C-alpha cells in the first residue's frame, strides 16, 4: 500500500544541515494499524509529513498503491492527517470543520451533510455540531480532528501523537475507540507515539525508530519478545542485559548455566549480550542453577521487584507478581537466593 523507498530527509544546508531521516525503507500494508515508535526527535513527525506531502524528501520515493506520489502536493494525495495540536479551524464550527475536506473535494451538498452526520455519530459528537471548536474540551477536539480527517474517507490516515494531550482515562478510552474506527472504516492507519504500551496494545505492526532510522519492524509480540537490538529492548519494557557465550543453539551465561536459544540471523558464535525480561525470572525454584545476592526489594502494587547482583557483578532484577494477601516475604537485602529462568526467556541481541 504505502512504499517508503530509501527516503532521506536533510533539513538546512551546509554546516547547519541535519539529517532527520536517513535511507528509511518500509512498506505498510493495506488496512494495517501501523505504529511509529521512538524517542523524541527521532524523525517520526518528519516521516509523516513526507507521506502527507507537506515536505519534499531530499532523496528517495514514496508510493501509494503502486503510484509514485513523491511530487504530488498534499491536496492531491488521498491521505489525511490528525495533527498533534489538532489544528482545528477556530473560525468554523465543529460541523464546518468536518465538512471542510468534503467541500474542497467538490462533493454535492447533500452528500457533505450526510457524511458529516455520519462522522459526528461515529465519534459521538452529534450534540456538539454547531459549537465553536474553542468551546469543546480537549478530548472532544481530538475526536473532531479525527472525524475531520476521516470524513473524506482517505486511503491512509496519519495520526501524530493524537492522544498525547489527553489524561490517562480518556486516553485509554480513545485507544479503544481508535481501534474500533480503524476496523470499521478499513482505512490504513499510520500512528505515531512515544508511549510503548500504546504502541503494543493497538498496532498490527510497530516500527521502532532511532536517530532517523528504523531499527526494527514487526508485530508487537516480536518487538517485545525478540528485540533485535539493545536499543529496541531497552526502549520497550524493562530489561536485564547479561554477558554470554553463544555456541550453536545454546548460550552459556558468564554467571553460569547453559540455555537453549533461538539464534538470530547474522550473529556469530562467541561473546554476545543477551536479554532477559525481569518478569521471566523466578526466585528460589527447585532446579535453579544461578545464584545471586539481593540488594533491595521494591514493592510496586501489582508486583514486587527484586534488585540483585550475580556473582560476576552483573546487576539483574526480577519482577514477581504479588499473590493475593500474600505476605510477599522475600528475603531481605544481603541474602542469597537462587534464580530460575523461564524456558525461552533468553533472547540473543544482534549488537
Amino acid at each position: 500500500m504505502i512504499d517508503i523507498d530509501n527516503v532521506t530527509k536533510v533539513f538546512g544546508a551546509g554546516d547547519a544541515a541535519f539529517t532527520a531521516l536517513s535511507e528509511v525503507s518500509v512498506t505498510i500494508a493495506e488496512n494495517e494499524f501501523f505504529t511509529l515508535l521512538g524517542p523524541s526527535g527521532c524523525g517520526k513527525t518528519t516521516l509523516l509529513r513526507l507521506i502527507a506531502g507537506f515536505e519534499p524528501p531530499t532523496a528517495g520515493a514514496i508510493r501509494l498503491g503502486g503510484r509514485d506520489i513523491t511530487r504530488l502536493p498534499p491536496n492531491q494525495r488521498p491521505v489525511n492527517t490528525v495533527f498533534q495540536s489538532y489544528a482545528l479551524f477556530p473560525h468554523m464550527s465543529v460541523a464546518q470543520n468536518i465538512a471542510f475536506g468534503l467541500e474542497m473535494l467538490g462533493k454535492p451538498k447533500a452528500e457533505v451533510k450526510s457524511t458529516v452526520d455520519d462522522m459526528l455519530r461515529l465519534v459521538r459528537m452529534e450534540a456538539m455540531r454547531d459549537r465553536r471548536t474553542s468551546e469543546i474540551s480537549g478530548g472532544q477536539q481530538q475526536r473532531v480532528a479525527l472525524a475531520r480527517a476521516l470524513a473524506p474517507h482517505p486511503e491512509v490516515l496519519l495520526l501524530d501523537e493524537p492522544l498525547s494531550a489527553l489524561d490517562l482515562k480518556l486516553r485509554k478510552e480513545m485507544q479503544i475507540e481508535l481501534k474500533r474506527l480503524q476496523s470499521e472504516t478499513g482505512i490504513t492507519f499510520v500512528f505515531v507515539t512515544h508511549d510503548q504500551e500504546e504502541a503494543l496494545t493497538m498496532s498490527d505492526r510497530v516500527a521502532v525508530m532511532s536517530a532517523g532510522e528504523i531499527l526494527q519492524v514487526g508485530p508487537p509480540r516480536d518487538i517485545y519478545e525478540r528485540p533485535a537490538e539493545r536499543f529496541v529492548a531497552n526502549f520497550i519494557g524493562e530489561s536485564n542485559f547479561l554477558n554470554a557465550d553463544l555456541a550453536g543453539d545454546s548460550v552459556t551465561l558468564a554467571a553460569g548455566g547453559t540455555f537453549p536459544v533461538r539464534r538470530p540471523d547474522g550473529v556469530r558464535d562467541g561473546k554476545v549480550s543477551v536479554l532477559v525480561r525481569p518478569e521471566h525470572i523466578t526466585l528460589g525454584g527447585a532446579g535453579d542453577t544461578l545464584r545471586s545476592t539481593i540488594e533491595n526489594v521494591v514493592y510496586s502494587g501489582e508486583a514486587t521487584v527484586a534488585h540483585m547482583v550475580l556473582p560476576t557483578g552483573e546487576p539483574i532484577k526480577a519482577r514477581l507478581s504479588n499473590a493475593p494477601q500474600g505476605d510477599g516475604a522475600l528475603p531481605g537485602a544481603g541474602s542469597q537466593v537462587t534464580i530460575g529462568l523461564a524456558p525461552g526467556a533468553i533472547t540473543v541481541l544482534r549488537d
Partner: protein
Amino acid sequence: MVDTAPTTTPAEQRAAKRHPGRAPKGYSMRTLPGFSVIALFTMIVLYAPIMILVIYSFNEGTSLAIWEGFSLRWYRQAAANEAVQDAAIRSLYLAFIASSIGTVAATMAALATTRTRRFPGKTMIYALINQPLMVPEIVTAVALLIVFATIKVWTGHTSMIYLIVAHTAFCIPFAYLPIRARLETMDMSLETAARDLYASPWLTFRKVTLPLMWPGIVAGLMLAFVISLDTVVITEFVKSAGQETLPTYMLGQLRRVVTPEVNAISTVILAAGAILVALFFRLTQRKG
C-alpha cells in the same frame, strides 16, 4: 501576566518586623513616592489642551478664551464653508484610496515576509517596507517635491495622483505593522491542515488564512487611514494648487486670524481619529 500580589508579601512582613517604625502602612514596592502624582499631572496635561480646544469649539463668541455660551455656530459655519467641505472631501477621498491600496500591498508583503525561512532578499524587502518610518517626514516630503515638480513640469499633469501615490507609500509601513503582528501569532498548522484536506493554495488562503488574518487587515487599514488623514507635511509639499486637504487648510488658516471654526474642524478630526483608534484597540487587543 503580572502576578496579583497579596497586599503584604513575606518580604514586606519581615521588613516590617525589622524596621518597626519605618515601614509605612500599605507599603508596596509597586508605588514609588511622587510617581503617581506626576503621572496624574501628566495625564491631565495630556488631555487639558485637547479638552479646552473641544470646549471652545462650542463657544458662542469669537474668542478662544472667553466663554460666551454654548452654540453650534462654528460647526455650522465650518460645514457651510465651501473650502472646508472641499478639503474634507479631498482628505477622505485621499485617505480612502491611499489606505486601501496601501493595505492591499502591505497585506501581500506581510504574507510574503512572515512565517518563513530566510529567503534571499528578505531583509531588503523588510528594510524597504519600513523605510518611510525611518526618515523624517520633511525629508520624504522635499524628496517627493523634487521628483514631482520635475514630472509636473515635463507632463503638465497635476491631478491628485501625486498625493495618492505619496500617501500610499507612506501608509504601507503603518498598515504592515498590525497585519504582520497578526500573522505571526497565527498557527501555520491550520493552513497545513487545509492543504491536507484537499484545499488548493488559493482556497487555503481564501478559506483559512484570510478569515484568520482579517482583524489584522482591518486594523492595518484603519491605522493607514488615520495616518493619511493626519499627514500634513508630505501633503503640503506634494499638492498642486487647489488641492488642500483638511490639515493643510488648517495650517494655512493659522497664518490668519484664528476663529473657533478651526476648533470645530479639529474636534471633528479628533473624534473621528479617537473612534478609529478605539476600534483598532479592540481589534488588536482581543486574542484569538
